[in-house]
């Protein structure tokens, strides 16, 4: 696979290194002279100097034959436009953009730049995962398929504890796909009883999080 990476910061440089190690052909584009010279000592021909928002720089890097374009500069506008041009002008089928400021995520969506990856959001999800009292954890968004996969931990005072799967009055468009108990996962049957301490994985249509939270969080049952 031929991959173009715009931005030779920590993310870009390490991505380039990993992708090359996995046997891919990579061109990293970096516009800061000193940074370019540093990385060039290691990556040699796999890095080019220039501003990846300029069309001729992308063309020199061979954007026309790129299988994947990754924009990971520290500037959201740059990342957005690099991906937009790669996708719409050079018809690069796969793009990935980094979102530096999570507030800008909606603009990436508006302009059709997906997936947009935000390190801040990822760390926030890790925090949610590591701090169980936080409630519901988003594990995966399947945007094209319009589905989400979430995880909920069942606390001792959760209304779901002690109820069988079939007794749960989940909204349409929500389905329990597995239970994690004592470190093991299994697919529940209709009569499987949910216990305190279980982690429940659900697949949802978007927008059902609040209804699910009401089913699992204490004190918010049927509220």
């Amino acid at each position, binding site marked *: 696979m031929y991959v173009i990476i715009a931005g030779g910061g920590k993310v870009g440089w390490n991505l380039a290194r990993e992708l090359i190690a996995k046997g891919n052909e990579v061109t990293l584009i970096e516009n800061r002279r000193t940074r370019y010279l540093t990385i060039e000592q290691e990556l040699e021909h796999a890095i080019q100097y220039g501003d990846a*928002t*300029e*069309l*001729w720089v992308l063309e020199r890097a061979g954007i026309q034959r790129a299988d994947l374009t990754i924009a990971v500069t520290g*500037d*959201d*506008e*740059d990342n*957005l*436009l690099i991906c937009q*041009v790669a996708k*719409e*002008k050079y018809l690069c089928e796969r793009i990935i953009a980094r979102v530096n400021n999570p*507030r*800008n995520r909606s*603009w990436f969506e*508006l*302009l059709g730049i997906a997936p947009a990856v935000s390190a801040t959001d990822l760390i926030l999800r890790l925090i949610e995962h590591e701090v169980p009292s936080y409630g519901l954890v988003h594990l995966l968004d399947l945007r094209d398929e319009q589905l989400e996969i979430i995880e909920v931990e069942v606390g001792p005072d959760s209304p779901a504890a002690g109820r069988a799967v079939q007794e749960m009055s989940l909204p349409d468009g929500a389905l329990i796909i597995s239970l994690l108990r004592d470190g093991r996962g299994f697919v529940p049957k209709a009569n499987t009883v949910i216990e305190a301490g279980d982690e429940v994985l659900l697949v949802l249509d978007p927008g059902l999080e609040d209804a699910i939270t009401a089913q699992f969080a204490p004190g918010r049952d049927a509220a």
Partner: protein
Amino acid sequence: MFILIVGAGRVGSSVARTALAAGHTVSVLDEDPLSHERLEVGLDTTWEEAGGRFTVGHGMEVDALTEAGILEADVFIASTDGDNTNLTISQIAQRHYEVEKVIVRVMDPARAAWYQQQGLHTICPTQHAIEMFTSALGAIA
């Protein structure tokens, strides 16, 4: 008409003054509070007394755009000193806020041409300079 200008540099501030003098409602958004001074160059009064509006903030921020009046704007002008910021916010104005007329300054001629084809009204000072130099050169040589 209600004209919202993002970026009060030399170009943006001059366009703002001219549009205000022509009787339009003009609102200016800029990150730098000091850029307000540039709006008052050549005016006898303050920018606000002359009828203008000024908001401090970035053109990607929803709150700043709302305060600057993007919901009422008939014309959106992106004239910050960054091409990529201009192109991004003008597309936001066009697609999200559905502003009727969107004009964007792009210094890079290649991208100005491409985004023009994609339906943005682009102004490229570099391209104008190239053409004027070329025709001046043609007149001499």
